[in-house]
């Protein structure tokens, strides 16, 4: 009887861990960006992405893996969309995917700080970004707005015509599958 109880407890614990993984997709995860230039700006985002967010006992134990399909990029202007796909920017024929892997989550004064590797355009670079994380049971809400310098990933076309810094917004609102 005791063995059965221990086995049931172990299985139960395992199920809790299994359930605490949120599958990320375009429905529960939105990645948008704002690209600016001296004469204006363009809003855009990505329509396809996959990944997982593994929930821990608290937000600092969070692990996120995200793979973005760069060919699914969209903007407010079709010409700009095609130009962003070209070798001038993302070069999607040669680099169709971008990956973001969160390696560390730390408590910050206003929320949390996510540290991870952003792989894009054939280059990987560690970045740290601010985020607000709300973890309730098996649901996860994460929001982060930050800027990256495109030159850090050798996306170096159009110096002085297109601004170096790009604002990125990430919003996750997901729940672990039962």
């Amino acid at each position, binding site marked *: 009887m005791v063995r059965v109880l221990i086995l049931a407890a172990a299985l139960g614990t395992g199920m809790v861990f299994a359930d605490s993984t949120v599958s990320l997709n375009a429905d529960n995860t939105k990645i948008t960006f704002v690209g600016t230039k001296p004469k204006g700006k363009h809003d855009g985002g990505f329509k396809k992405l996959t990944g997982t967010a593994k929930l821990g006992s608290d937000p600092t134990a969070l692990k996120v893996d995200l793979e973005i399909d760069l060919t699914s990029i969209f903007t407010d202007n079709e010409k700009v969309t095609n130009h962003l796909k070209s070798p001038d920017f993302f070069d999607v*024929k040669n680099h169709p995917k971008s990956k973001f892997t969160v390696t560390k989550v730390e408590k910050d004064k206003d929320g949390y700080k996510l540290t991870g590797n952003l792989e894009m355009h054939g280059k990987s670079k560690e970045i740290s970004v601010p985020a607000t994380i709300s973890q309730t049971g098996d649901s996860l809400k994460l929001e982060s707005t930050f800027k990256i310098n495109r030159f850090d990933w050798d996306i170096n076309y159009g110096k002085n015509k297109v601004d170096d810094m790009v604002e990125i917004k990430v919003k996750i609102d997901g729940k672990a599958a039962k």
Partner: protein
Amino acid sequence: MAALPELSDVMELLRAEVLPAAGAAAAVYFVASMLPLVRRASIPAALAIACGFAAGNWQDQPIDLRLDSSHRLHGSEFLTALQSAVVSTNGTVHPPQRFWLVWIVAGGLIAHVINEMAGNIGWWLKLIVGLLGGWLLAPHDSMTTRLVYAAGYAALSMCIWWVLDDHSSGGVQPFTAALAAGAISILMLYAHILRYSQLAMIMSGTLIAIAFLAWWFQTDCGAVAAVAALGIPGLMLLSQHDSAIDLPRASYSLMAVAPVTLALLGFVYRDNLGARFRGILAILLWLIPVCASLYLTSRVAILEF
């Protein structure tokens, strides 16, 4: 109806790329043509092409000559990357294929000059550059794909080189190549790849300067054939692979093979035609497929500025 580009953008393109390329090419071609040791064969044209590209690419750097943006290109780094690109079978490569284009053309210029000075060994060098060029520029999808591209690129390059060797003096060849490069820059606008469009305009500015001086002094500018034989097919190969816009394959192919049409001049008896008429005929023959390419493109895509 295609909109016209903004005047400020045109002026900026002229100021930053076309005029520096043309100015540098003209100055180098003029000076090199005067120097006793350098003025032999195609050396002035080869030097002018190299300097024209360097000057035109200087400010905006549409074609990055560095492998790592944080420091200047080192010789050992270049050789390691070249070795890696030659043996690589991976689908994604660094540096991207476009990095090698200017180096392939530079190799072609050297091979062309050697060919003029040392005879047939130059043709073997041209063949090696053509094969290596096709191998480096081809998509790294599979070994078969790369072999087919390398063989096709080398074969086309040799054909263009062979045809253009008959038109190496007097400015017709660089003038027509400059017009073709201008048309290529429009094709690249259709393909939404501005860096390739800028490269084509740099090419055009360089060649128009050489054409004017070669016509004025009636000097040799056969090295332009290296640009036409390696640069134009290379740019077409890259564009077709890299563009996110589905332009007709014929648009790229016609632009790439256009110089070969000059072979038709071989069927015209030289004695029956004056040099001027032959020159006009050569220009028309090259530009017919170029215009056909733009026409086919304009039927499926919209030119936006």
